[in-house]
């Protein structure tokens, strides 16, 4: 009895301690984004929204935010479309060397982003493509395509194969089957792949850093802010990014996973 109560106490203490560890830096980040002073470290001098004001007034930060959104949504859309079509072909038709094809499509997942970025950088240099948001987007599709393909491919069951056959049998052309039956039917997993891709692209640093020049994305802009050391403004922009990510996560949770759970 005593030992079980002790074990219970121990596990709850452990839980709280680790949650403390996990939340400590984020709590500090958010708290000191309201710091009324020049340094985001203790003591806490009182709350102000001035740093958030500066963040939203900073045109470089705002354009980086816009760039990040464009690249994230654009690359996630391309990755989802390509991934969906590939998954559709490999799950529904018998193609030669389909294992090899699947392996090829998944393979970028097993390679560090740094290496992907470096490979693209050397190649773009070699053939003389100048760096821009486009090159960043291309890199982000490379890392998100395997993810989208894997998620959508995994959700394509044999049961749905019959549903698509039924649609074809009732007179639907192939594009009608895809747009009116397969895609809506697989919408939860397509949305999951899309939002995950958006989050990954939104947060990605090294590819965006190496493959961009004048127009940069938000993580790269934040990176250059770090050179000025500890600064409550960096806290404020970090908190904004955190809130946006959590909001995305909540949307994903509410729309996609709830709906799948219901079914």
């Amino acid at each position: 009895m005593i030992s079980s109560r002790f074990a219970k106490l121990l596990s709850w203490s452990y839980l709280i301690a680790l949650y403390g560890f996990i939340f400590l830096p984020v709590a500090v980040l958010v708290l000191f984004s309201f710091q009324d002073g020049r340094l985001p470290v203790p003591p806490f001098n009182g709350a102000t929204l001035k740093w958030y004001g500066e963040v939203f007034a900073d045109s470089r930060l705002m354009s980086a935010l816009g760039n990040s959104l464009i690249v994230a949504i654009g690359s996630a859309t391309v990755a989802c479309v390509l991934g969906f079509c590939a998954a559709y072909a490999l799950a529904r038709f018998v193609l030669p060397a389909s294992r090899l094809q699947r392996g090829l499509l998944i393979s970028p997942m097993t390679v560090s982003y740094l290496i992907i970025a470096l490979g693209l950088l050397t190649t773009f240099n070699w053939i003389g493509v100048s760096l821009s948001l486009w090159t960043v987007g291309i890199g982000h599709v490379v890392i998100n395509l395997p993810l989208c393909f894997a998620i959508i491919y995994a959700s394509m069951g044999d049961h749905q194969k019959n549903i698509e056959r039924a649609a074809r049998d009732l007179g639907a052309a192939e594009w009608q089957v895809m747009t009116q039956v397969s895609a809506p039917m697989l919408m939860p997993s397509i949305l999951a792949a899309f939002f995950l891709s958006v989050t990954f692209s939104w947060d990605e640093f090294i590819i965006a850093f190496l493959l961009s020049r004048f127009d940069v994305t938000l993580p790269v802009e934040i990176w250059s802010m770090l050179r000025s050391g500890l600064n409550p403004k960096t806290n404020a922009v970090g908190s904004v990014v955190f809130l946006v990510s959590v909001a995305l996560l909540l949307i994903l949770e509410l729309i996609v996973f709830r709906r799948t759970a219901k079914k």
Partner: protein
Amino acid sequence: MTAPVSIRNVSKIFGDFTALDDINLEIAAGEFIVLLGPSGCGKTTLLSLLGGFLSPTSGAIEINGTDMGDVAPAKRPTTTMFQDYALFPHMTLRDNVAFGLKMRKVGKSERHAKAEELLDMVGLKTSANKKPHELSGGQRQRVALARALAVEPDVLLLDEPLGALDLKLRRQMQDELKAIQKRVGTTFVHVTHDQEEAMAIADRIVVMNAGRIEDVGSPETIYMHPKTIFTASFMGEVNFIPGTFESATERTISVKTPLGSVELPEFECSGFAPGASVTLAIRPEHFRASTGTGPRITLGKAKVEDGSFFGTHHRAHLSPLDYPNMTITAHMPQSAIIEPGAWVELTLDPTTVVLLHGHPPRPTQESATL
């Protein structure tokens, strides 16, 4: 709305597996055909060939006199009702049923009216706005039927549509299916492995085994006068008594069996030569006619080994006096008192006995010692 189907010399080979071997079948317009057989017999392959999901390796399929060649499923005058119903999970029932019409560019109000008419026919008019996951299995099955019929196919192909339903619901749906088929007049080709279902709904049953057609005929013919040992055993419980063809006169034929010589009234017994291996097939319920009038033959006395009560009858295992190693299954009247060790007379009406070529493929222990 309805059309005849003709299947000529159709074979389908997957790699080195022959799924269908030289199938020939004529189906009349408006007929309710059931393809019956064990799994792997080729019945579903044949249905897929009719639907256009597969192409035959050789042979031709004509619907309404037109060769189907490799016409795509969408372009054929057929629709398929799938075993798992394959309803579109993200659409309402109305949109599900109207889908085929939408693909045919029928206007919205017109196709919705037609969809509702069909939902009404299957008793689901009030559920038109529901989604498939809100329905029970039987209701989904009805929606699938309505969806397949909405495009007014000449031929409806049904792939074990009742397989996923429980027994009671299956019997009820059989009746509805039959009634709806009579009403719309469309040619139905229905695949099943359940012989009771086949007998309940079919105009004609096509019994298939190992890629070939074993037997074709009305449920009564198939059950009462099967042409092969396979059909006889697949259509329900049966006793096989192996024997040798002895002689035929104008009126009777004579077969030598371990239970003595049996005299049968002469019917289509062409192709039997004296000395040929034959088998007598006797349904368990035919032993019941022992006290009735009319022609009777006997297979001698038999001892009751055990029995169990089935409601409509007692099912008893008997061992014949002349050949105790053989086990005969017989249905005895409800009122009979079945006691192990009792002796009964194996009497039956000779017209109910079916004479078949050959011996059962897997000899039972009894006949092996013959």
